[in-house]
């Protein structure tokens, strides 16, 4: 698509979800799942007479991002009012930052590197702003266009946002997606943003093709959709240009259900936000020691982590990059390696199987890790090493585990993937049988013959694949452990 001479610039809005309180009041920043309009106070409702008081932690978060993106940081912190009327905005102005006469953004002129077709590409960052999130509009009987009425929930009003604006250095939808993923990973690694939370990351994309005009696509909520929306726009715009039509300068919305962009309502006049410095928040000097303090707290960032993965684990650059792109995935990988070593095998499984199925099944990494904890994944790898199962079976078992939530070992038994002569595997079934048959266990403790019932259950659960001698031996051992434990309690 490069022959189309595509220019893309992104405005990424992220909620600083690590904060305890909103940007200008003491309401909790954890607004999700609360009854509408209960997470509010006079300030975030914009009641007459209320005043904003800056949450300094938000400034530190902004500074940390600015440092990570190698920005020039402003000497003073100035907040400006951005005026526009809209029902989700309780004061009908947003407290934001502005780069212009009498005002300045917290940081400017940074950059972010992405991997584009094996080359490192530098994408310039124009500026970073700190600003407040508006409330949320709810359309109970349809969409923005069709609902008969609209409800407003101000629980989100005043949540701290960072607006990160790139220069139009991106040249393809894929690069745009990589930019968002990289940024997301940096924010995750700094512990500032939990991107799994709904609405914590929103992107507006500006795109222009040679011979066309700049089109802004608003309201994109994932990196995948950034790629989709921009691809859609390139096709739409290039078709228009091919037909000799004019691509007009406009704002469009991304419809994430229909996966198309639609024109936003046309305004008769260009919006004039009438920025001016907010007189409620006098400018604050940003002292060097504050910036140093923040700098000293920056944890390992994705680029450094990739470097470490290459050195420490001998991974390929591809594997290292894909792992680190999502902090939770990289964390999972490292946990697994800690349990059983095998960095390369684990790396391949985590990327090719685990990550693939997480996406396919639309799970969060967090949920997937709960279903296949590092110890279970390692168990599979050990079975593989011992040739109890082969790689094909491992590849079949992982999606079954992730889908069903059953333990990996149980699936291997139940589905008859392995002869059961592995002690660890057998023990898992025995544990399950003991848990499910408390009465039989009680009997067996007093009457040695009663153990046969439990053996039978193990055989049934393993569909007759359990080695009977081993089963008897392990069961007897387990029962004597239980008896001992009971004695010591008594």
């Amino acid at each position: 698509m490069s022959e189309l001479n595509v220019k893309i610039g992104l405005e990424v809005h992220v909620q600083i979800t690590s904060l305890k309180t909103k940007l200008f009041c003491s309401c909790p920043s954890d607004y999700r799942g609360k009854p509408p309009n209960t997470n509010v106070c006079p300030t975030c409702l914009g009641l007459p007479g209320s005043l904003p008081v800056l949450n300094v932690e938000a400034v530190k978060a902004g500074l940390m991002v600015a440092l990570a993106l190698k920005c020039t940081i402003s000497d003073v912190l100035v907040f400006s009012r951005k005026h526009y009327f809209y029902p989700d905005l309780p004061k009908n102005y947003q407290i934001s930052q502005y780069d212009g006469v009498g005002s300045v953004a917290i940081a400017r002129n940074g950059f972010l590197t992405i991997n584009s077709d094996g080359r490192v590409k530098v994408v310039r960052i124009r500026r970073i702003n700190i600003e407040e999130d508006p409330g949320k509009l709810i359309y109970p009987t349809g969409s923005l266009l069709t609902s008969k009425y609209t409800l407003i929930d101000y629980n989100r009003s005043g949540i701290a946002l960072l607006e990160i604006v790139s220069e139009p250095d991106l040249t393809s939808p894929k690069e745009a997606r990589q930019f968002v993923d990289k940024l997301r990973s940096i924010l995750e690694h700094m512990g500032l943003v939990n991107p799994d939370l709904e609405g914590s990351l929103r992107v507006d994309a500006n795109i222009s093709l040679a011979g066309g005009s700049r089109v802004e696509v608003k309201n994109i909520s994932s990196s995948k959709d950034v790629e989709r929306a921009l691809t859609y726009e390139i096709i739409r715009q290039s078709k228009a240009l091919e037909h000799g039509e004019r691509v007009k300068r406009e704002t469009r919305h991304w419809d994430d259900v229909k996966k198309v962009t639609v024109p936003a309502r046309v305004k008769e006049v260009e919006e004039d936000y009438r920025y001016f410095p907010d007189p409620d928040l006098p400018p604050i000097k940003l002292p060097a020691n504050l910036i140093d303090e923040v700098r000293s707290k920056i944890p390992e960032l994705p680029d450094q982590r990739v470097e470490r993965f290459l050195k420490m684990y001998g991974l390929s650059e591809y594997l290292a990059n894909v792992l680190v792109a999502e902090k939770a995935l990289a964390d999972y990988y490292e946990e697994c390696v800690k349990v059983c070593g095998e960095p390369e095998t684990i790396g391949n499984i985590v990327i090719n199987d685990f990550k693939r199925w997480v996406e396919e099944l639309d799970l969060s990494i967090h949920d997937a890790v709960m279903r296949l904890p590092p110890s279970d994944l390692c168990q599979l790898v050990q079975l593989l090493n011992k040739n109890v199962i082969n790689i094909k079976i491992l590849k079949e078992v992982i999606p079954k585990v992730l889908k069903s939530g059953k333990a990996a070992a149980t699936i291997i038994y139940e589905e008859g993937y392995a002869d059961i002569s592995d002690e660890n595997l057998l023990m898992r079934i025995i544990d399950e049988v003991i848990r499910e048959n408390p009465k039989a266990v009680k009997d067996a403790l007093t009457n040695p013959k009663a153990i046969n019932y439990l053996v039978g259950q193990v055989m049934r659960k393993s569909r007759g694949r359990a080695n009977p001698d081993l089963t008897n031996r392990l069961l007897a051992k387990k029962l004597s452990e239980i008896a001992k434990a009971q004695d010591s309690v008594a």
Partner: protein
Amino acid sequence: MVSLKKLLRKSALELVKLFHSDPNLIDEYVIETYELIDKVEDLIKSYITLRPLDDVVADCKRIREKIKNGFKGRLAGLLIAVKDVIITKNLRTTCASKMLIDFIPPYNATVIERVVREGGIIIGKTNMDEFAMGSTTENSYFFPTRNPWDLSRVPGGSSGGSATAISAYEASIALGSDTGGSVRLPAAYTGTVGLKPTYGLVSRYGLISYGTSLEQIGPMARNVGDLALLLSVISGYDPRDSTSLYVSGVDYTEFLKPTPIKKYKIAIIRECVDEGVDKAVLTSLNRSIYRLESEGFEVSEISVPVIRYALPAYYIIAMAEASSNLARYDGVRYGYHVEVENKLWDEVYSEVRSSGFGIEVKRRILLGTFVLSAGYYDQYYLKASKVRKLLHDEFLKIFSNYDVVLTPTAPTLPPKIGEVITDPIKLYLSDTYTTTANLTGLPAISIPADVVDGLPVGIQLIGPKLGEGELINIAYLHELKTGLKDLVPTVVRPYV
């Protein structure tokens, strides 16, 4: 007529002392006050919302009990009138606007918390120009307030209701707000004392914003001592206001000394005593200069040419900030609202804002929106900010040589009702001498200097940053010298 008003005429300072030793007097004082209100309120119209006597009596009872248990609140038992621009929890707060006609706030302004903590009793919410925009208290959605010295005249504004409430003995002390002179002008027109504190000395939390960077809540009283008392209670750092100064615990009554705390050097600004000033005002000012000189103070005339730009700069900044501050009134969350069925949200906003705001408010929102617009910002707002900086620097220089600046509070005596309201320029001119203190953030007090043909005349003293103590000291000396305190206006004379 038998005058029973033995408590009503007493100063707030005296009353609190009495109440501390005999809390049962509080009820007597309250009933006397309400009896007087019955007689004069219909003529003056100080209050938009007057609390029912029963509610106030219930407050009295609580405070009485507390005093019996050793409570020594600095305002214990005093009736305090509050300008309706200050947020009072569970007590309707309208800003004299249709826009907030039914607004009952869920919280208290910081000053209200402080007043109540010291045992003060809010008697009611006073009339004002809508959203504090005006200088006569005629721009109220409800009704105009009349001057108790002459019912055909305005009491000044925008804190007119607070000024008339104390002037007419309908309350002991009052809270006003001053964005461009709104405490000082009505004080001058009603023969009372009003102070605009240093910017940041009194918390703005709970003050409904008009011109954010200019305004302060200010104390109003019939004498300097009572003003010092109220200032001591309401001033000091508040973490809820980011523009609040780190100052606390000043007792301004300590500056009420019969001898000067220093040999004051006083400056008269030539540009403030030129042809624009009424002869009567000038004569009164000269008399005060003579009195101050006879105290041994040095009075000199200086020139501050940039002060000519203060008024236009003030109005540009105030209107710009107003256009922003008043954007929130859209009828969605509180206040005046309209039927929304089958209308788009922006149609509803237009309807609410067209019919909810009065003409002067709309004028200022439109002008303020204009001066902040792309392409005009540099020409107006930025230029006004430069004038502001120049003035600020100029006054810093003045205060390196002088202790206080003396000017008339207003260029004229109180105008007749209807005389200036139809002419915005004339209306704005009444703020000529007061706006300087708002632009520079400096403290300024208006005190009575004379009564001419039955009308009070005020003078203004401007001090250096946080120079409230010295202002109070000079004002107190002036008061001792002139005896112009606890004045009784014409309307009230038969009853006290």
